[in-house]
């Protein structure tokens, strides 16, 4: 049995106030293990992104707990929580959120720089991660000069630069054509996933379902089922 990476218990999250108040997560509990590529799927508004945000220390739940490697992350203060995200979590945002006025290498170096690494050393190390995602030759270019698939790979390189144990990918194929999306997620599974890393992916994309080790299905803020890989 692999080690437990994330344990969420009875997570509840409300949004809005008064008549507009809606429950985004209803008593959600889940376990995620190292070595897993765990998909969270469901229709729009089912609470996938909210759940991902709560699990990654970005959005505080109204009740319930989230423990990552035994640490209850929502008991941490804001600075410690920021440190937790910096050291434990790698994010690949849906729109990448790369800095257009920094070079590709500088973008990848951001987690290292936030981790107080010397600028020059951070750039050298970032080039290593660019090499892993096959973009070493593009280190000096700004992200806007890269294709969508290449930008996605830069975002992945940035996510793994801090050597996080948990990687969060929000709709990683949403901005890519079918072949590129499949290739990217396949690349992640082959090269980024290992038995000391857990990858959580929110997606609608059925074309990448073959790479999932487990699929959690959500609807109306609830987990309604779990599958071992297969169709989304």
């Amino acid at each position, binding site marked *: 049995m692999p080690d437990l990476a994330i344990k969420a218990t009875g997570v509840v999250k409300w949004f809005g106030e008064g008549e507009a108040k809606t429950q985004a997560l209803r008593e959600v509990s889940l376990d995620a293990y190292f070595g897993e590529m765990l998909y969270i799927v469901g229709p729009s508004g089912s609470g996938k992104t909210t759940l991902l945000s709560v699990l990654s220390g970005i*959005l505080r739940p109204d009740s319930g707990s989230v423990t990552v490697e035994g640490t209850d992350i929502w008991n941490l203060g*804001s600075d410690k929580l920021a440190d937790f995200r910096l050291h434990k979590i790698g994010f690949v945002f849906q729109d990448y959120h790369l*800095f257009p006025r920094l070079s590709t290498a500088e973008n990848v170096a951001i987690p290292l720089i936030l981790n107080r690494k010397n600028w020059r050393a951070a750039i050298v190390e970032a080039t290593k991660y660019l090499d892993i995602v096959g973009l070493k030759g593009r280190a000096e270019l700004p992200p806007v000069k890269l294709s969508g698939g290449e930008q996605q790979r830069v975002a992945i390189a940035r996510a793994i630069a801090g050597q996080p144990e948990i990687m969060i990918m929000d709709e990683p194929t949403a901005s890519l054509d079918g072949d590129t999306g499949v290739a990217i997620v396949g690349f992640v599974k082959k090269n980024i996933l290992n038995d000391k890393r857990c990858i959580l992916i929110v997606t609608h994309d059925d074309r990448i379902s073959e790479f999932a080790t487990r699929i959690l299905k959500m609807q109306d803020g609830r987990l309604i089922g779990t599958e071992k890989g297969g169709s989304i």
Partner: protein
Amino acid sequence: MTGILKLAYKLLVNDKAKFTALLVGITFAVFLIVQMTAMFAGTMKRASATVINLGASMWIMDPAVQTVAQTTGMPDYVLDAVRSMQGVSYAVPFYSGGALVKLADGTFQSVTVIGLDDTSLFGRPQLIQGKIEDIYGENAFIVVKDPEFPKLGNPHVGTEFQVNDHRGVIVGIAKVASSGLFGVPTLYTTFERALQYLPNPRFTIAYVLVEPKSSSDVLHIKQQVQTLGYLAVTKDEFIDRISNFYMYQTGFGTNMLIMTVMSFVVGLSISGQTFYTFVLENLEKFGALKAIGAKSHELVFMILFQAGFTALTGYGLGIGLCVLLITLAKRRLPDYAALITYWNLGLAFVMVVVIAAISSYFGVRKVLRIEPFDIFRG
């Protein structure tokens, strides 16, 4: 932290259009602020030129006097009374008045004539040509070589002219620390000759210049002079009195203040708005940094650094531009009264800091409020 600062620096300067707009705004504001206040300082210095050049520690005058050029004669007994006061090392009469000089080509030129105490020549200027004792010669005058000097036809030692229809001859050329405000040349002569050449009212002493024995005697002298019905002030107090006159009784100071405030508002508007837009455009990126693991105080530090860097760069450029303009203007217009002082620079610095603080305040508020979850939600 240096890596984070470099990140902030790159995010700022690599956005060339915004960075340029920010710099232009602050540079322009600093330029205007320093230019306005430099003109004010230059004018004030020139208004007090005679006080500065003579270097007397104390000045005794009629209480109605507001500026050094606006003299009201005092009777001779005031000089005698002051000389007999306790704490006075010495006291000399001083004359200042206006005259008309007829030049060799037949044209007339207004001049300021300064009459120095015949015995001591206290307050005499530093000569660059001629000998000071020649001032006792017949019809002798010393001319000051300042920006107004050419108005007398660039005279030299031996040049003759008429002062109020009396013969005058230049026996020396002097330099002074500051030239006057009103754009007229200055002639020095003895007190007695000044009285002979210039039409005078009943009382002829414009000022009594006093050197106290020690600084502790100043108050005592002031009190004694007051009992005579006159006013005794120190050199600095007289300069302040002249400045206050121009500032509060001529509208000059108010105009300068309004222009300075307007410069500040223009700079604040351009820089504040541009910086706020810069932060807004980068808000998602700041949110992404927050999600990745940047702490709030690190983001605040980045914004303050960006605002501070822009402000200081604009400050330097603004001052450089101002110095350049004043230097060029003085080459073309020797009378141009602008003087950059530490006070000007300090005021501009404070205003730039305020502009940077206000600009970054709104950016910081925005960045602190952005939730990383908003980045996820898109």
